[in-house]
């Protein structure tokens, strides 16, 4: 019989709540009182998340976010800025101990293993995607998913974005991309760097269809059955506490 992991399925929450849930599951998992967990979720309102080390003013067009009602949040994970479009993006997260027999000890290998689940999920939809180290997944040479991992006290948390039908124009209205960042890439504009399922496949892909494909990708790649579950009371208490951190100016504007 297949090992079972918990699935927290397509919760729609605001940015501080989503980031609080990811961290809360990782903290609870540390105490071994929660199962390995995969989450799929959407952000409402749409939000920009920036990497732990990024300078907010440098990466985010704050007046544009204000104008379009887009939230801004800092993640606990490194990496780059992501536009989480409520109408066009699915975020996933996975929490499992470093010591899990399936989890590669090497961080880069674990990126590849987890991103493999996304690649396989995308293949279900007919997308020929590949993992591009360190933390990207590309389709037709363009980024369709970005991923970020942290390891704390023996627990791995990785989250990432899957662009379903993200508004790429809006993405680059709310994100600032420095000239230096694309200086080593032979592209005309930042918009040429990214794609989404609708652009790649030339047809609309609904959230239900994308969700089902991603679930199959996780189950096949991890050799597990995902069983829908809810957050425990202990996790909910942590979410409440962490929500305060993630909504605070001290956290979001620390760099």
């Amino acid at each position: 019989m297949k090992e079972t992991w918990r699935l927290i399925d397509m919760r729609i929450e605001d940015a501080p709540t989503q980031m609080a849930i990811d961290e809360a599951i990782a903290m609870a998992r540390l105490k071994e009182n929660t199962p390995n967990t995969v989450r799929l979720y959407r952000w409402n309102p749409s939000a920009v998340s920036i990497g732990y080390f990024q300078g907010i003013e440098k990466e985010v067009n704050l007046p544009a976010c204000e104008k379009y009602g887009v939230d801004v949040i800092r993640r606990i994970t490194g990496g780059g800025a992501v536009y989480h479009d409520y109408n066009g993006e699915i975020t996933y997260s996975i929490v499992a101990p470093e010591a899990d027999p399936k989890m590669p000890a090497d961080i880069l290998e674990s990126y590849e293993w987890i991103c493999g689940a996304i690649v396989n999920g995308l293949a279900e939809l007919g997308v020929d995607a590949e993992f591009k180290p360190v933390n990207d997944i590309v389709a037709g040479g363009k980024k369709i998913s970005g991923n970020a991992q942290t390891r704390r006290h023996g627990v791995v948390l990785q989250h990432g974005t899957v662009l379903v039908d993200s508004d790429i124009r809006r993405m680059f209205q709310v994100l600032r991309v420095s000239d230096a960042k694309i200086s080593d890439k032979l592209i005309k504009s930042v918009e040429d760097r990214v794609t989404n399922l609708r652009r790649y496949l030339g047809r609309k892909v609904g959230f239900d269809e994308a969700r089902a494909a991603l679930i199959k990708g996780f189950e096949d790649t991890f050799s597990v059955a995902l069983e829908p579950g809810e957050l425990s009371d202990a996790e909910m208490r942590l979410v409440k506490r962490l929500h305060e951190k993630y909504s605070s100016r001290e956290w979001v504007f620390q760099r």
Partner: protein
Amino acid sequence: MKRAEYKVPGGKLLAAELGVEEGRLVGVKITGDFFMHPETAINDLEKALCDILVEDLENNVNRFFQVNSVTLFGVDAGDFVKVVRLALES
């Protein structure tokens, strides 16, 4: 305040912001889309680079990564030296 950005070829973006007072680095702030495990080590690195003589930069960066157990992706120790130097030249 001096500032510079450095895109590691095939890697991540680093930026440094700093001041210089009497030949010493002050207020060093490093940002970017790199990965550092554990993440909180960035604060220790910034502290380790404050109030040091400009010419001791490379030694201090190297010592920091020798003494502390820090894993980097998308950048390496030398890239931190490079971006700080670029900021100094700005």
